[in-house]
């Protein structure tokens, strides 16, 4: 491939040809290139592509860590999985989490970015404050949230009682636990989305707003609808998909705060995978869960690239 294209390039672009060194140098450089990419290529094979193929292959076996041998069992893991109530609970909870956190974190991120950008004072202070949760170790902050949500001594119930509202045992109640985790997820993701939206807002040309105003779009809402929202299209798509992918991976808060409980009300896919694969060491079964998870994540990625292609045309 490269030899052929090299001669074509050389024929078409004489200036470049003149700069090309002798063939001997060229081939020595190719050797150098292989030496330079070998460590990366080898590690990619061993740590990324091999394991990816491995997890798919494992999902068709009954392998358990420490077992002397294993056999190919076809789709049996998937049959077990689809017959298992816990799997469906985990899938439903994961989807609920995604469906709550993505709109929450995207709308709040956009609203905050618009508010910050609509004035000039204290911009960087606000940006810093809203970005702080992104920086702070989630596990540490999850433990803080747990105490904030403490039924008796927590800040949240304290405030609710102060306002004369009923208090909840947020993380211990199967009706509220998943939503409490969603709230933590939104709190953590908002700042990240805000920064992406801010970057998108800065890149919208000022003339568009002036043109819209001349055309009669005088209210803030009209300017948002006619200029900001369409111009932010590609950024919004990106933010939605990346929030979706990250929400699908929810694990940290679940593992440290609820372990999937109470009565499986916060069981999510990666947590089920972790329990099966690394507590019960049912590697084959856990691999099948991983494959299901991968299908969802890759589908989201595909949607993104589809929409991104479309976005390129109208911007």
């Amino acid at each position, binding site marked *: 491939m490269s030899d052929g294209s090299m001669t074509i390039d050389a024929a078409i672009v004489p200036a470049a040809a003149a700069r090309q060194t002798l063939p001997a140098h060229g081939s020595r450089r190719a050797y150098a290139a292989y030496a330079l990419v070998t460590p990366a290529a080898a590690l990619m094979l061993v740590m990324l592509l091999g394991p990816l193929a491995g997890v798919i292959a494992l999902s068709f076996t009954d392998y358990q860590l420490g077992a002397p041998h294993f056999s190919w069992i076809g789709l049996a893991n998937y049959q077990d999985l689809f017959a298992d109530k816990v799997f469906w609970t985990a899938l439903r909870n994961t989807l609920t989490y995604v469906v709550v956190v993505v709109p929450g974190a995207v709308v709040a991120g956009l609203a905050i970015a618009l508010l910050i950008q609509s004035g000039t004072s204290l911009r960087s202070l606000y940006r810093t404050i809203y970005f702080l949760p992104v920086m702070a170790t989630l596990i540490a902050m999850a433990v803080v949230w747990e105490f904030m949500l403490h039924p008796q001594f927590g800040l949240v119930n304290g405030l609710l009682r102060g306002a004369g509202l009923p208090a909840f045992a947020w993380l211990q109640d199967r009706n509220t636990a998943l939503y409490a985790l969603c709230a933590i997820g939104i709190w953590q993701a908002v700042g990240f989305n805000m920064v*992406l939206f801010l*970057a998108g807002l800065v890149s919208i040309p000022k003339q568009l707003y002036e043109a819209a105003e001349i055309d009669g779009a005088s209210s803030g809402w009209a300017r948002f609808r006619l200029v900001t929202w369409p111009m932010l299209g590609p950024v919004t798509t990106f933010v939605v998909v990346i929030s979706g992918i990250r929400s699908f991976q929810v694990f940290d808060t679940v593992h440290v705060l609820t372990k999937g409980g109470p009565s499986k009300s916060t069981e999510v896919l990666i947590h089920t995978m972790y329990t099966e694969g690394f507590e019960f060491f049912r590697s084959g079964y856990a691999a099948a869960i991983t494959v299901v998870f991968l299908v969802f994540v890759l589908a989201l990625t595909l949607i993104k690239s589809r929409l991104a292609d479309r976005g390129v045309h109208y911007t």
Partner: protein
Amino acid sequence: MSRTHSVTLRAVLRHVLLIAGAAIMLAPFIWMISTASKPQTEVFSSELHLIPYRFALVENLREAFAKANLLRFLLNGVIVTISIFVLQVMVALPAAYALAKLRFVGRETLFALVLFGILIPPQATAIPVFLLLHKVGLLDSYAALVLPFTISVFGIFLMRQFFKTVPDDLVDAARMDGISEFGIVWRVMLPAAIPAVTAFGIFSVVAHWNDYFWPLIVLNSEQLRTPPLAVAHFRNNEAGTSYGPLMAAAMVIIAPLVIAFLFAQRRFIEGITLTGIK
């Protein structure tokens, strides 16, 4: 007159809304510092007060450091994140240079694999990588924490895009001076790429300092624990009894990154949102 009036009103409304939101964002941090400063009796009181009647921050910190070897865990965090970053650069930079500036058979295939690799979420490869480390007897070691992350396809992609913008003349001039291709990577490209490497470094260090999933899977030994694992164990061991020291420990764990962030916000925001340019 009425126009200026509505402008001020809007400015006030903007601040009111943003301050209300900021209060929610900061609430856990304030509650953490408040609780870490309270003695036990004030923590377990249904009456809400932010400022302790008696400050007990030092006692709580002392108890946190006594109950868990926090210094050791912080040191583990530093060792692991720095090792990962240094190895990622050593592996990614040469590959990125070759992909950006050299011609060789298989270049397009390799680059396509790099782009594909970016799509693979880290949880997807966890089981086989765990089995591999088990097979070679490396579980429960620094190597288990570091090795799987030495390859950063995202780092390769990022540096390759950056190197594309470095003029060929610079590379040719270095070749004229007799510098080898290997030397060009480290003596010409690396200095030119310092801003990109810094941004990637922040991205990498923050991600691995905060990572919980992988250390949880491969570690057993207490002395190897990384900061997030340390907090989780502290929380499990104390089982809802000593919130003051627990909040103090949480403070200690998030402090290094938060302080670094407050000093270099722009760079941190750039680094963390690197994924935004994909």
